[in-house]
Structures are given as structure tokens and as C-alpha cells.
């Protein structure tokens, strides 16, 4: 921030505007639904990413494997030598984004084939969704940075929205998106897209052209992630991370961001995270102080658990939270099973939970 703005603010405080993340309110009013949800399956922390329902079974990407949840114990369906990320169910089988390999299709009989190993889809694929005309829609968070945190702090806008047909041909529907992190298709063929670093969920024409984008949810208090249809015209979405005012204030001081990004590891940055792995290196904010053995649920937090359901009109209908005093943080995947149960892949805590119905006590 320049000296001039400082002076201006000193003289007329109302004349200078600062970015402020909105509070969690209305449909996003905090509760403990995610924290108190029943656990379907446990994995190592950060050991689970996406969840889909395939052939009546919940299937999750868990590290270098894909596992099916039947009863309690996960049964490994397929293993890889690289991390498996986003999943999508196609009529032909299960599409899996394997880091460094591309999009791989797993058939019901266990055989696999590479759907596409084109460079653009080999890495940083954040979400997959079946396209109504066959094949897949895919989002790529960034073509420059592997880590979301780095893309955020460097204000990267190099994400892609891609269409992959069943033959493996890749079409770019749009480029230059600020970390697209979720994609879905509405009944009329319109595309719903989570643009995480713009804090919006937008609707686009089936062509995906940027000119047709209309925001459905705007100025969200977090960075929205994957989307899935709830079946009644509404959509479930996850919010892996919440925005932080302290982080956003750093954007006013590019030198400081540059110094942080170039001289320290991501785990010590003051940025929202899925999980704090080494607290010894993590910054702390005043509200997070443990006072008399308690951490306040309202504490400003760098990790948070949130899944929410919204209508196409832009109204957030319900949400499930795990707050600062909880541990089910970093929800990255969501799926609705055949009975209408909502499964959330909580990556930070490494578990799959099933959240109860709204109003059920």
C-alpha cells in the first residue's frame, strides 16, 4: 500500500476500500454437522481426496489407490504408482485423474485404459464430471503451479476448463481461470463451475465460453471446490478452505508475499490449508490461542470443514461445518448415494463421513 493511500485514509477513512471476506452467515451459519457426522471409513490424514458412487458403492481415491467402501473397511479396487485425485463415473467405467499419468478409465471388470495422457490433463486436474454428450468435463487448477497455496498467493490465473471425449481428444473450453476446482452439468446442459480463487460458483453455457458466465454464488467466504448434483435441482459443494483476512491483507504488500513464497515452505505460510501438519512451523492468530485448555470454535482458522447445498437460484440451502475446535477439516469430495445419503471426503482428517439430514437431531 502506498504512502498516498495511507495519507488518504488518515484524512478521510471512508475514502479507501479494503477487501473483506464475508462472515459465515445465512445458509452458511456454523453448526457441528460435519464434526458430529458418522464416520464411514478412516484413512491416514490427507490420505483421501474424492468420493463418487459407482455401481451402488461409494468409491474413494485414497492416496495411490482407489478403494470401495462396503460395510466399514475400505476394499482396494485399483492401485497406481501415483496419487489418484478426482473421480467421475462414466457409462464406460470410472474415470480417474492420476497425477503425472493422465486420465485413466477403470472398467467394472477391473481392466484399465488410458483415456488421455495429453500434457494438459496429466497433472493438477482438480475435478472431473461426466459430459452429457459422452466423455468428461475436467478442470485443471493451474498450468503453472502445483500447489494451490502458491497459485493463490501469486494471484495465478492459468486454470483450464477442458472437455475430454471418450476417444481421448481434449478441447479447451476456457483458459485463464483462477483455480477452477469443481465442475458439474445442469439438466439443460449448462456448466456449473467453481472458481476457487475468485470465490465464486458460476453457470456457463454448454460451450463453456467465458462470455456466457453468470455467477450463481458470489463473494463466498471460502474457496469453493467440487460439486455434485443433490438430485432435486440443488447441488452439494465442498469448501476445502476458508478465506482469511490476514492472508488477503498480504495482497496489499507484494514484497512480503514474494519474500514468503520464495524463502519458506508452504507449510509455514499464513494461508488457508487442508491440515496443519507441523504446528511448530505454523503461524498462529490471536483467536486461536488455547486459553485455559480451550480453543474457541469461532477462532480465525486456517483449516475448516465445510460442505453445503445450494439451489440453482444461488440460495445456500443447508451446510455442515467442522469449526476451529473440531478436526474434520479440509473437505475435498462430496457424493450423494442411492439412498440420498451425503458422503463427504474429509481430506485434512483423512476420513469419509456421512452427514445426517437437516433438522434430524
Amino acid at each position, binding site marked *: 500500500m502506498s504512502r498516498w493511500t495511507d495519507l488518504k485514509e488518515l484524512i478521510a477513512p471512508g475514502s479507501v476500500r479494503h477487501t473483506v471476506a464475508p462472515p459465515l452467515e445465512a445458509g452458511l451459519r456454523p453448526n457441528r454437522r460435519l464434526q458430529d457426522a458418522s464416520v464411514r471409513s478412516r484413512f491416514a490424514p490427507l490420505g483421501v481426496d474424492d468420493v463418487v458412487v459407482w455401481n451402488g458403492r461409494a468409491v474413494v481415491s485414497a492416496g495411490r489407490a482407489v478403494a470401495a467402501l462396503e460395510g466399514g473397511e475400505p476394499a482396494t479396487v485399483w492401485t497406481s504408482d501415483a496419487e489418484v485425485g478426482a473421480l467421475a463415473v462414466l457409462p464406460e467405467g470410472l474415470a480417474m485423474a492420476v497425477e503425472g499419468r493422465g486420465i485413466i478409465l477403470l472398467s467394472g471388470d477391473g481392466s484399465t485404459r488410458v483415456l488421455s495422457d495429453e500434457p494438459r490433463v496429466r497433472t493438477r486436474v482438480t475435478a472431473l464430471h461426466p459430459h452429457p454428450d459422452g466423455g468428461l468435463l475436467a478442470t485443471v487448477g493451474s498450468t503453472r503451479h502445483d500447489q494451490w497455496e502458491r497459485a493463490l498467493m501469486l494471484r495465478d490465473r492459468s486454470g483450464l476448463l477442458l472437455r475430454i471425449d471418450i476417444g481421448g481428444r481434449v478441447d479447451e473450453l476456457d483458459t485463464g481461470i483462477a483455480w477452477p476446482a469443481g465442475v458439474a452439468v445442469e439438466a439443460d446442459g449448462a456448466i456449473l463451475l467453481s472458481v476457487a480463487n475468485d470465490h465464486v460458483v458460476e453457470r456457463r453455457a454448454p460451450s463453456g465460453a467465458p462470455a456466457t458466465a453468470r455467477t450463481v454464488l458470489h463473494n463466498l467466504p471460502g474457496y469453493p471446490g467440487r460439486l455434485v448434483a443433490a438430485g432435486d435441482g440443488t447441488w452439494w459443494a465442498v469448501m476445502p478452505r476458508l478465506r482469511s*483476512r490476514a492472508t488477503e491483507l498480504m495482497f496489499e504488500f507484494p514484497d512480503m508475499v514474494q519474500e514468503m513464497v520464495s524463502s519458506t515452505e508452504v507449510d509455514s505460510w*499464513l494461508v488457508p490449508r487442508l491440515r496443519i501438519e507441523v504446528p511448530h512451523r505454523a*503461524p498462529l492468530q490471536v483467536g486461536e490461542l488455547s486459553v485455559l485448555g480451550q480453543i474457541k470454535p469461532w477462532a480465525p482458522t486456517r483449516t475448516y470443514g465445510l460442505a453445503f447445498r445450494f439451489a440453482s437460484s444461488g440460495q445456500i440451502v443447508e451446510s455442515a461445518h467442522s469449526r476451529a475446535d473440531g478436526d474434520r477439516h479440509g473437505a475435498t469430495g462430496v457424493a450423494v448415494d442411492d439412498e440420498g445419503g451425503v458422503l463427504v471426503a474429509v481430506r485434512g482428517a483423512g476420513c469419509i463421513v456421512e452427514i445426517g439430514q437437516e433438522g434430524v437431531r
Partner: protein
Amino acid sequence: MARPADAYPLNGQRWASKHSFRRWLSDLLDKSWMEGAVPLVLAVILGLSFALTTPAIVSPGDMSVMAGRLAELGLLAIALTLVLLAGGIDLSIGAMAGLTSIAALVMFRVYEMPGAVVVPITLAFGAILGAVNGFFIAVVKTRPFITTLVTAITFRALLQVVQSAYSAGLTFPRVDLTWAFLGRGAIAMIPTGILILLVVLVVVHVMLNRSRWGWWLKAVGSDRRSARRNGIPVQRVTFLAYVACGVLCALTGALMAARQGSTSASLGAGYEIIALTAVVLGGVSLRGGRGSVVRALIGTVVVVVIGQSIFRLNGETAVEVMVLAGVLLIFAAIDEKWGLHRAGLAQKLAINPFHYRAGPLVDVTDPSTVWRANKELDDAEPIGLGLIEGPEDCVVDDAERVYCGDRRGWIWRISGEGYRDAQIFARTGGTPLGHVWDQHGNLVVCVGGIGVARIDPTGDLEWIATHAKRRRFQLHDDTAIRFADDLDVAPDGSIYFSDASSRISAGNLLQMAAEYRPDGRVLRIDPDGSVDTVATSFASANGICTSHDGQSILIASTLFFRVDRLWISGPKQGQIEPVIENMPALPDNINRASDGNYWMSFTALRTPFLDIFLRHPEYRRAMTKQLPLDEWVLPQQNLSCVAKFTEAGDIIKIMWDSTASKHPLVTSMSEHRGWLYIGGLQNNRVGRVRLDPSEIGPIDPYAIPGLGRPVLPGTADIVVPDGVRG
């Protein structure tokens, strides 16, 4: 008293960072005298520029004219200051002066009364005129502005009536000694008028500043409502202000009558605007309650000089009035804006984050370092769990009773089997921090926000330090002890204690962590009771410990991750030298260990982000302004540990609470009979762990170097005579 030692050069920070211009400005603006000083300085500059551009005005003739005008206008300015201080205004002063002047002349010339009689009657008449204003404003509660505007017109009409009724008799001058002395006399070359002005000035100044009525007057002018709530008779005070104003106007009138003898009907016209200009130039606030008669007089001098300069330059009275009116407008605007924003500006400039360059950071999670993880504090036995809140420090007596502070201001004494008996041993009213036993077995406690208290074994509390001698050449008043933190007793019986910040009190700890300035200091309580600053420029001076040999004091500088040594005797007396620098954590209290080493607690861990954060004061300034307190960034304060270090400053042992839930914040530890007691400012318990026998040495940590072990409370309960011991 020697000059305090300065620890700043040890820190290796830029010299330029030590002082902050903004802070200096903030301190300056915060002074209450600044309210009037700025307009006054501007006014004096204005007057000087007029005087210097028209040298003609320093001639004896001009000086004499100016002296006469000064006497009359000065008295009016003092009169106006009185009502302005009371929160009112008086526009009728010119008319009152004119009317009383004519009245005096009528008495003197028409009725041929002696001068010595005329003057008191004139003053009484002025009092009556003032009482009319006072009655309407104070009793009927009409607005001062409109009331005095109306009375001004009325008095002037009365003046014309009197003047036309007695115009024939008024023209004959008379000779009278008193009268001549009043108008043209002088004592020691000083004209009578000026002498009267000076006497009035001194009397009114003393009354305003030293009498009850003067204080009441300013209180009423500052805030009528709170003055009333404080039992001040607002009505009477206001009424008397207008009466006093009337009397002073009458005195002016008498002087005018004696000096000029003018019988014009426009006598005194326009004087109210000139007096108002003079007063506002002098920095008397139009908003009430603030100002001084001395400054008002300086303003009058400026106005008189300007008037005479314009007279010499141009000769037109109209131009003089025009210039003065312009000056009045400008200075009234300055008064309004300055008075409104001075304090706010001072506050906006008050927080000035420090640019701190920390050295390389040791990774405490690296297993090859002494900092590697362990679980040594995990199984600490809880004491007072669920009862005490925030025991920053603790000590133990000879009956194994634990004494610890509480954030509610209490000192607990916890005793008995399993520490189930707890009682409030003393109440301090502040935030009890460091504890120590003195040589007489009294508990001496640093109390954040107050100072240092001595508590005898029965629980009676006595304050032994609540303020220090003010250091010279400091704009900021560092008399108050705002954040007494830790303490220890030296071999000569004096007590050394740290004041974490000479500016920020214990309640604003977080502001200190955001600002990160080396404002901390170390003070010494002499056995004779005097309190002096002995060392300065510590960033949150915290742990204090007398060394085993009694020659030096160890001082932990929390925010600069270091421990320094202040020599208190021997060849290096008065010098400071580093002991441990650039630790990966923020040190808190230090205490002696039984094996000749020292215990030190760490209140928080340094993080890589913290080091960057500290190099960017501009971010921290924005943070303190834009973010709510809960979102301010801190060091990692939910993890902390206890260390043992040697006399040479090598850390040889670290004890962690790996759960980070029982003792997430360790601010102190105290070794007693093979146990280590652990306190923490935000914890809900005191913990104790049994030390490994290999770590326990022959030294009693509670023995004061050079003075031996004090007899602690509880000794009598368990002491066994030597002969009986097996």
C-alpha cells in the same frame, strides 16, 4: 544515579529503527498543552511578520499608543477568556466597556465625583451589566450567543441615551489626581494601564489554575453534563463568569474614560471582534474549557501589533477590521479542526511496528538438535486444575504449599494431600506475574498494571514499587510501571525487576506483540525504597534471574529471542553482554537450577512466517488498523517448552508437553526439592514433574546468592531439630 545501560546495540538492529518519528510526533501531539500551542505559535509568527515588515511601529510614540490599546484590549480578552472557558461567549463586551466608560465620564464630569469614588461605582455597574447576561444565560438558560448579541444592542442603545442626555455636561474636562494617574500615570516607566492589566492577569491566572472556582469553570466549559454529575454548581459558576466578565469590562471602561476621555456614541464598538480575534489567536478554544489568560494576552499583543502595522501602512481602520476578521476566521477554523483531531491523530500515530531482522531460525522439529521432541512434561501432576486461571509464575514454600497468580488478580495458596486445599492468599487487583521469595521469607510479586507487591506470610500486601523516577529527556512519561513482569533479589537485598514495556500495560500485551519495539526496561528497588531504571531497550524484558555468583542479572528479552547479562558488581558493573542469542523460541521467566545451571521457559515458538512478518512493519501496521484483534498474527503460542542452560549460555536440555493441551503455554518454572513446578499465563493449572536425580544438584534454587536461604513460611510445621534427625 548513573545513566541506565542501553541494550539496543546488542540486538544488531538498525540504529535508525530505534526511534520512530511517528511515535515522537504521537507523544508530542498527545500533550495537552499542544491544543493551544499550535495556534499560538502560528499567531506569534504572524505578529512578528507584521512587526518586522513595518519598523515604524517601534517608535516611542507608537509604543505608547500600543501600550494603551493593549491595556484595554487585554482586559477585554481576559474577560472574554473567562466566559469562553465556561463554555459560553460574550458579544456584549464592547458595549459594556463603552457604556461603563460613558457612565464613568458622566459621574466624573457631570456630577463631579472624585476619581477614587467613580472607579468602584463603575466596577459595580459593570457587575450589574454582567449579571444581566449571567441571569439570562445561567438561570433562564437562553443561548449565550443570542443573549449577548441582544444585550450588546441594548447596552449600546442605553449608551446613546446617556450620551445624548448628558452631552452638554460631558464636554468639560476636570482635573483629578486619581483620574490622571489612571489615564496617564506610570510607575517605573510602566503605564498604569499595563500595570493594572498585569495584576489582573496574575490574579485571574492563579484563580483559574489554583482555585476551586477556576477548576469548576473549566470543568463546566469542558463538559456541562459531567460537571453537573460531579456535583459542580453549574448555574452559579456560569453566572459568576459573566459577572466577572462585566467587572473586567467596566475596568476597561474606566481606563478608556481616563485615558481617552472620548464621549463618542460609538465608544467600544467593534472591540468584541478584536478581543475575540486576540483570544482565538492565543489558542483559547471556542469549544469551551480549554485556554489560558496568558495565551489570550499573547494573542492580544499580536492583534495590537497587527492593528498598528496596518495603521502605519494604510491608515484605514476599515482595513484593520477586515484583516483581523480574516485572521479570526482562519484561526477559528484551525481551532475547530485541531481541537477535534489532535487526540485522534496522536492515537493513529501511536502504534509503530518495529522492523526486526531475526537471525537464522533453527528448526525445532529437527531431531538432530537439542530441541527434538520429547514427552517430559506430558505427565505433569496437575495442581489446582479447574480452579486457577492463568498462573504466570509459582513458588513453593517449606510446607510444599504452592503459591501462584491468577488472571483475576489473586494469589492462590494450594496445599494438602493431592493439592486439594486451595485458598486465596492475597488479592492484588492487577495481573500477578513473576513471584520470588525475598531474604525475609516474604513473597514478592510483580503485578502487571500496578507494580511490585510484597506479601508477608500472613497474606498482608504492601506495594514496594508502583512508579519509578522519570528519565530525563523523554517526551514520553515513563514514571508509571505498566508491565512489571519478573523479578529476583540481588545479594545487596535490592530487587531487580523487568517492566516489559514502559508504554504498553499488561492488558495490551497483544499490541506489544504486534508492535515489537524494544520498550522494555529493567528497574531496581533499592533497599531504601527508591526505584530506578537500570537498563533499557529490551523487547519485552521478561525473565529476571540473579546469577549463581551474585555478580550479574540475567534478563530475557522475549520478543528478540535472547538473554542478556547485566553486571551489577565486579569490574564490568553496569555493562550488558549477550548470553544466548537468536533462539528459535520466545524466552520467558528464568530461575536458578540446583545443579548450577538455569531454567528458562519459552512462551511461544518462532515460526518462519514470524521472521518475515517482523521484517514487514507496514503489514503489521495495516494489520493493527484493519484486522480485528482475533486475527492478528502471533508467534506459535500454543506450543512451548522448558529449557535448561548453562552459565555460558548453552542450552543443554529441553522439556516439551507433546500433548500441547495441558501446558500449551509455559511462562515459568520453579525447582524445589527435586520437583519442577510449571506455570503458564493461559493455563488452567500448575503442573509439577519429578526431576531425574541425576539433574538435581546441591544448590537450593531459593537461596539468594550472597544472602543464603530465606526462612520460608511453613518451615515451623515440618522443621526437625538437628539432634533428632536420624
